[in-house]
């Protein structure tokens, strides 16, 4: 601005000034109406105002500027449902805040008014005030904050010690932090051990110390939260609070004669350590600072002795979990000692340990992230002891529970590479033993269950390692996937494989592990693995196809002969993954073999229906191969059999399968080549055809077939792809909610759920329009005498539970009592999971009021 010559500056100034004046007049005339009618303009004027306040010398006009800004506080605007401009309450609130915290000059003017608002408001408005204070105080500066500090603190205190709700409590704590930062921003980190402080923080700490004399009471919890918040401010404050607060708590723990409140004391201590951890995480602690150094021994002493007292064991474990995570605090040797102590509470035989086992394991896991050595030397041998060589009989549930606990515990802590390696070696040798064809098991089924539990433990750790992107996974192609592969191959070729290596549950779990590993491999190794699993999967499904080649046509035919769903599905997955990667091999297949296959195995009425159905599934999976123009021709063949009374239904479902683009088999993770656009193009070409089909007479069977195709398709694609068509397809969806086919109803309700969850979407209005019909249909779907699938019932209830928040009360209020009374039946659903949804949904409807 200064770059402009004086005269132009004056003009700009004049324009803005007159704008401001006119604005103010308009404002006076319209009052709050102005806010509700023109929220967009307001956003713009807030932005202008902020610039004005920051860039210009506004000192002489400050009172006026403040008045015209502050009169908007607090923002009470609520966007109308389906608002097209998309201005939210938060946008306005942020805009106003950015003006109020634009200049320190507002400080003396704003603070008294904000204090007044704080005591007079509740709920959202109170939170808004607290947040505004939080953002303004640092700008207003120390001097003005000091003037109002006692009053501010008195107001915050009420919200902290008698919180109306967790949100307000959090806002009050953050505002207090802001106040403290502002007041003590100039203080340096003390160099000597003696910490000096004065002013507000002394009052706060003194007050909290008084409250902490009764650590078991509710006020103590608030005091700890408050001190924790102070810990997260600045280094000197942190030192002061810890030295005063921590000493107070620890001295409490040693001086307390009775043990009954020790758990509360330890929990308080844990609160402080968590705060320090939090401070580290948020980056407010620098590398030099070691805030807990002075108290370390006392704290660890309090926790490790606490472990031996049942009433405070949980608190002690939680405390240890926090303290071992503090950077460079606990030396390695001491960590080993802690592992020892905790080990005593990890006995897999002890049912009593179950309550606290997860807490104990959490500590060991945290230690393993710092050093694996003590865990490997102490925890692992202890737990491996409980994996028996002789499987307990199927009636010995207690013994089965023991090894399961050991496996669970191992799976929790063996995440770090060295630990995982030991874990895999030990478990593989157990599996090898269980699955050996030479084995003469005492109890075949018990063996299988044991093998299953072992595989599940392996799988669970793998899932975690994949989530955390561990780099050691690829080596387990050799160390785990191949050994597993051979274990099951060996069994498959033996004349009488033991159940432990042939039970479908065990085998599919092993296959899953192999897939998990294969997914994590770099591409060139993955191709190899894909071939491996290509041959593995049919083997796992109980078929041996020697010399099979990936593009061999008989392979496709073979699935027509497969004997069960699981087997054929496994094979479809295989075909698809292989063709997908080896497209050049698939060319002749797509060009000639697939049409032949269609004619011979699907279109031909002489083939038994079961076989045709299977062939159809295979056909679809083969089509999923790749984005190829010929594929669309093949897809269109599907529509030609929609009228087939026996196959039409399956063909319709297949359309959805296609839309999903291969589900979780042909995903990127499996290195399949899938393109979103591919699905999009498919939708664009297919949807109109399906919608047209839905419009034909409802008396024809094809009508239902098209409905199925529609629901199955939209359920399998991202909702953005059909959202614009929602008004057209909604009536069909509603009709579909009454058909007997539960899968179809589930698809529709999932779709409705997806649409309803996105409240901002304008398409929510489509649901509102049909609300009454949908509600009635959902109630039927939630009825356990009508709907067999418990998952569908639960989903229907969930969907119903969203209505009070997305549909205006005036639309549905005539149905409120009816819904509530009908839901009482769902409260008695045979399944617990459904009842839970029914309770939640019903309580939402009770709260549904005008």
């Amino acid at each position, binding site marked *: 601005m200064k770059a402009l010559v004086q005269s132009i500056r004056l003009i700009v100034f004049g324009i803005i000034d007159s704008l401001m004046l006119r604005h103010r007049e308009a404002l006076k005339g319209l009052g709050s109406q102005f806010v509700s009618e023109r929220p967009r303009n307001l956003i713009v004027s807030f932005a202008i105002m902020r610039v004005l306040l920051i860039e210009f010398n506004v000192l002489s006009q400050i009172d006026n500027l403040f008045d015209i800004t502050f009169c908007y506080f607090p923002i009470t605007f609520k966007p109308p449902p389906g608002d097209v401009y998309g201005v939210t309450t938060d946008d306005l609130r942020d805009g106003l805040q950015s003006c109020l915290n634009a200049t320190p000059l507002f400080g003396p003017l704003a603070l008294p008014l904000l204090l007044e608002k704080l005591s007079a408001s509740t709920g959202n408005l109170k939170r808004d005030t607290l947040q505004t204070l939080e953002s303004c105080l640092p700008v207003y500066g120390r001097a003005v904050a000091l003037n109002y500090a006692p009053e501010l603190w008195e107001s915050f205190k009420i919200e902290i010690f008698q919180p109306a709700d967790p949100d307000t409590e959090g806002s009050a704590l953050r505002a207090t932090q802001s106040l403290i930062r502002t007041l003590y921003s100039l203080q340096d980190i003390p160099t000597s051990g003696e910490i000096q402080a004065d002013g507000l923080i002394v009052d706060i700490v003194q007050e909290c110390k008084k409250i902490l004399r009764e650590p078991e009471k509710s006020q103590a919890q608030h005091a700890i939260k408050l001190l924790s918040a102070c810990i997260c401010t600045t280094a000197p404050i942190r030192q002061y609070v810890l030295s005063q607060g921590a000493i107070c708590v620890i001295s409490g723990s040693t001086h307390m004669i009775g043990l009954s409140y020790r758990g509360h004391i330890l929990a308080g201590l844990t609160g402080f350590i968590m705060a320090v951890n939090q401070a580290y995480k948020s980056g407010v602690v620098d590398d030099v600072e070691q805030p807990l150094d002075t108290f370390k021994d006392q704290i660890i002493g309090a926790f490790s002795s606490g472990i031996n007292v049942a009433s405070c064991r949980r608190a002690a474990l939680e405390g240890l979990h926090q303290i071992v995570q503090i950077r460079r605090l606990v030396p390695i040797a001491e960590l080993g000692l802690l592992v020892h102590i905790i080990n005593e509470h990890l006995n897999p035989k002890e049912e009593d340990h179950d309550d606290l086992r997860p807490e104990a394991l959490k500590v060991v896991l945290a230690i393993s992230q710092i050093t694996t050595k003590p865990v490997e030397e102490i925890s692992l041998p202890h737990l491996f002891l409980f994996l028996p060589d002789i499987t307990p009989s199927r009636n010995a549930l207690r013994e089965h529970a023991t090894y399961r606990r050991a496996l669970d515990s191992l799976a929790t802590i063996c995440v770090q590479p060295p630990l995982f390696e030991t874990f895999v070696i030990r478990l593989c040798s157990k599996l090898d033993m269980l699955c050996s064809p030479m084995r003469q098991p005492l109890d075949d089924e018990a063996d299988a269950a044991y093998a299953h539990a072992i595989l599940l433990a392996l799988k669970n750790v793998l899932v975690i390692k994949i989530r955390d992107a561990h780099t050691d996974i690829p080596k387990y192609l050799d160390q785990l996937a191949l050994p597993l592969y051979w274990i099951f191959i060996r069994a498959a070729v033996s004349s009488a494989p033991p159940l432990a290596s042939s039970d479908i549950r065990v085998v599919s779990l092993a296959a899953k592990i192999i897939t998990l590993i294969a997914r994590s491999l770099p591409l060139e190794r993955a191709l190899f693995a894909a071939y491996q699993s290509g041959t593995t999967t049919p083997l796992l499904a109980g078929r041996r196809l020697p010399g099979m080649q990936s593009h061999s046509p008989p392979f496709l035919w073979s699935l027509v002969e497969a004997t069960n769903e699981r087997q054929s599905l496994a094979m479809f997955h295989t075909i698809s993954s292989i063709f997908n990667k080896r497209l050049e091999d698939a060319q002749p297949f797509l060009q000639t073999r697939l049409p032949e296959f269609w004619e011979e195995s699907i279109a031909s009425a002489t083939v038994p229906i079961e076989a045709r159905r299977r062939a159809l599934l295979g056909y679809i999976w083969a089509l999923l191969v790749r984005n190829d123009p010929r594929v669309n021709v093949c897809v269109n063949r599907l529509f030609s059999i929609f009228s087939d009374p026996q196959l039409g239904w399956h063909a319709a479902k297949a359309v959805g399968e296609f839309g999903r683009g291969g589900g979780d088999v042909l995903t990127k993770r499996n290195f399949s080549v899938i393109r979103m656009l591919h699905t999009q193009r498919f939708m664009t070409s297919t949807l109109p055809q399906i919608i047209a089909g839905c419009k034909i007479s409802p008396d024809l069977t094809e009508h239902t077939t098209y409905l199925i195709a529609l629901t199955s398709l939209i359920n399998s694609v991202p909702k953005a792809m059909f959202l614009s068509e929602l008004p057209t397809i909604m009536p069909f969806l509603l009709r579909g909610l009454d058909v007997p086919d539960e899968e179809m109803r589930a698809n529709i309700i999932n779709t409705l759920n997806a649409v309803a969850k996105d409240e901002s979407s304008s398409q929510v209005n489509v649901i509102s329009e049909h609300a009454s019909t949908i509600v009635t249909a959902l109630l039927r779907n939630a009825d356990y005498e009508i709907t*067999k699938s418990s998952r569908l019932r639960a989903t229907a209830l969930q969907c119903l539970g969203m209505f009070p928040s997305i549909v205006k009360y005036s639309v549905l209020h005539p149905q409120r009592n009816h819904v509530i009374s009908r839901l009482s039946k769902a409260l008695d659903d045979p399944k617990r999971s459904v*009842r839970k949804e029914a309770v939640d949904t019903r309580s939402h409807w009770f*709260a549904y009021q005008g």
Partner: protein
Amino acid sequence: MPIPTATMDNPNPVIFSSKKDIRREVRSIWIDSSEEFIDAAEEGDNLPEVIDEDEIYDLLRSITDPEHPSTTLEQLGVVTAEQIKISGNHISVRFTPTVPHCGMATLIGLSLRVRLLRSLPARFRVDITVKEGSHQSESALNKQLNDKERVAAALENTTLLDVVNGCLATANLRGRDPIDAA
């Protein structure tokens, strides 16, 4: 709205740690809870899972105290799993007010009653009582909480109903931390 300290019956009650996951018995040698085997067959089996004490406790634990809107009845030790008994269609819930002169006991009892009225099948009959010796007007309280006519009349009082609804606002959390749940 926070209630001023001066008028609170118990401004600083004892806090109890919440009960963690509810343990269920091992019934099979197979770990069948893993997601792989919940297929259509099991989903549709509808073998009844009866409503038990733990389920009732789950319904009640996260109701809040009218005097301490951010503290649950579980944390205050007002309701515990051990104080719930089911036999057939009869449920008995005992609760322990934080102090014997707690004037909020009626409201707490009413909240428990309303929660169960709204969440349980109509076939259940529920008795709600305060633990013996835990309240100075124990018998009056018990009588009032189990008089359906007085409960019905109380729930037509909108001020009272607002307070009860406030206490029930977090009930669906079932012991979870509000922050985790969000």
